[in-house]
């Protein structure tokens, strides 16, 4: 495809490559614009989705994979429709969403508060941080049965597990963020007789926000994992519980359908977080590059 307005001298046009002189190189060559229009990009994305689905479908058909092991896209779509038509999913979706959001809220709150305290004081960091790191190195999945033992099969244990997973990335990013203020910015504040509280409120806190949002963004995605892990260990409702149920009845397509729902939840929550972040920390656009502690 040649969209160039200027006739180009290329080997394709018949001339051998040797015929290109140094002077030709100076002629600006019109090329395809780098940024695609929104409509074309959407079309491309839809086309690629169809392609992936088609490859998936025909791979299953041609390789004669049993639908009990790996269902095709059509079977998954059917299971997804059934899930919503029967209304079965509504209750479980509600339970899991509650666990995710409540766990995220508690974990993020504790992460923010403790992060703000540790970020303010080197003494607190020396005393507290070793315990925080020790706690973080224990795999939460391994502790999950304990939480179920302590808090029961109800949603409370899942909220606690989710909160412990969300806690650390929020904490770590808050600490780093509160210390990210440039030295001369703080010096300038001091030269204008700012108190430590002024420095915190006017410089350190806003400076930390992009990091905090990076932590929250990691946290909200991890919260989905936390809730499901909790439900795997022992639950009476929720999407994780539903996955296990489908697993016991050898319903692979049903399991895939729930996985689709789960990844959609993660996607929506992540987009929501990004949406909020763009409005709160409008002066920077690179908050996702600042992630740490996942």
């Amino acid at each position: 495809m040649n969209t160039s307005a200027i006739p180009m001298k290329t080997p394709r046009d018949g001339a051998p490559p040797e015929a290109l002189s140094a002077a030709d190189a100076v002629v600006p060559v019109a090329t395809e614009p780098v940024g695609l229009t929104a409509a074309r990009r959407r079309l491309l994305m839809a086309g690629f989705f169809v392609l992936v689905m088609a490859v998936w479908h025909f791979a299953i058909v041609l390789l004669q994979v049993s639908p009990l092991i790996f269902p095709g896209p059509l079977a998954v779509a059917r299971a997804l429709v059934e899930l919503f038509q029967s209304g079965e999913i509504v209750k479980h979706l509600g339970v899991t969403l509650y666990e995710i959001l409540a766990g995220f809220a508690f974990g993020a709150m504790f992460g923010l508060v403790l992060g703000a305290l540790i970020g303010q004081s080197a003494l607190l960091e020396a005393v507290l941080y070793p315990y925080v790191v020790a706690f973080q190195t224990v795999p939460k999945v391994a502790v999950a049965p304990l939480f179920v033992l302590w808090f029961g099969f109800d949603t409370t244990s899942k909220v606690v597990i989710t909160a412990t997973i969300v806690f650390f990335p929020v904490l770590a990013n808050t600490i780093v963020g509160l210390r990210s203020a440039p030295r001369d910015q703080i010096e300038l504040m001091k030269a204008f007789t700012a108190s430590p509280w002024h420095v915190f409120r006017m410089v350190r806190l806003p400076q930390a926000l992009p990091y905090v949002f990076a932590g929250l963004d990691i946290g909200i995605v991890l919260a989905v994992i936390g809730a499901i892990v909790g439900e795997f260990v022992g639950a009476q409702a929720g999407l994780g519980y539903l996955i296990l149920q489908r697993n016991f009845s050898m319903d692979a397509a049903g399991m895939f359908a729930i996985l689709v729902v789960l990844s959609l939840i993660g996607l929506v929550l992540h987009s929501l977080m990004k949406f909020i972040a763009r409005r709160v920390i409008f002066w920077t656009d690179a908050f996702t590059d600042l992630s740490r502690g996942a």
Partner: protein
Amino acid sequence: MNMPLTPRQAQAPAFGFQRLHKVFRSKDGGDVIALRDVGFEVRQGEFVTVVGPSGCGKSTLLRILAGLERASSGTVSIGGRAVTGPSRDIGVVFQAPVLLPWRTVLQNVLVPAQIQGRDIKVATERAMHYLALVGLEHFATKYPGELSGGMQQRVGIARAFVNDPMLLLMDEPFGALDAMTRETMNLELHKLKERTGATIMLVTHSIPEAVFLGDRVVVMSPRPGRVTQVIDVDLPHPRSLDMINTDRFGTYVSGIRANLNAAGGLD
């Protein structure tokens, strides 16, 4: 022979140093003498420039005056009172504009007023007045990210003026700007000074800048930093950029350069 050079000058010195020493402990445990026996006084309304090569302690001198650093010995006083820490009477400008990107231009200029709990209505009027003086009255609601480097530094200057400080301290305020913007900024600062009658100490390593702006130029030599010369610049006010090409201006510049070369040279 310190002649009065501005109409608003008074008898008491605006600030002064006496037998000032500053020693830094270096990482390997040795002592580095940053300032040795520095002493001079500056009158109210005077514009004094401090010129010297990097490492001559001129920035340290300014930081001590701003209360951001302590002298090892000797005294520093502003308006007759010893400096013990940052003072409400001082405005500062650093080499980088150091604006807060989440605040508009006007909100940035108001930072010192908010810190010192001043009446925000009055301060806003003053902020707009100084923004107009630096030619940015139409940019009050813009964010720093939308401004050029020179414009950002002008915001920093308006911010330093907003509390009407007794003393303005500027540490290489135009060091990061290109040569043409720098000349324009020098002229603007000179005009601002003529209009406000503020007492200003400006630290620079540009000799022409020091001569153009200064009523007096304090020349410092490096390691250990000490004052080698204090020169009264007897050029007429208001100054214009044409003066830079005159013989008298050139004599001041070459005189200072010769002094610095004799003392170890400019970097």
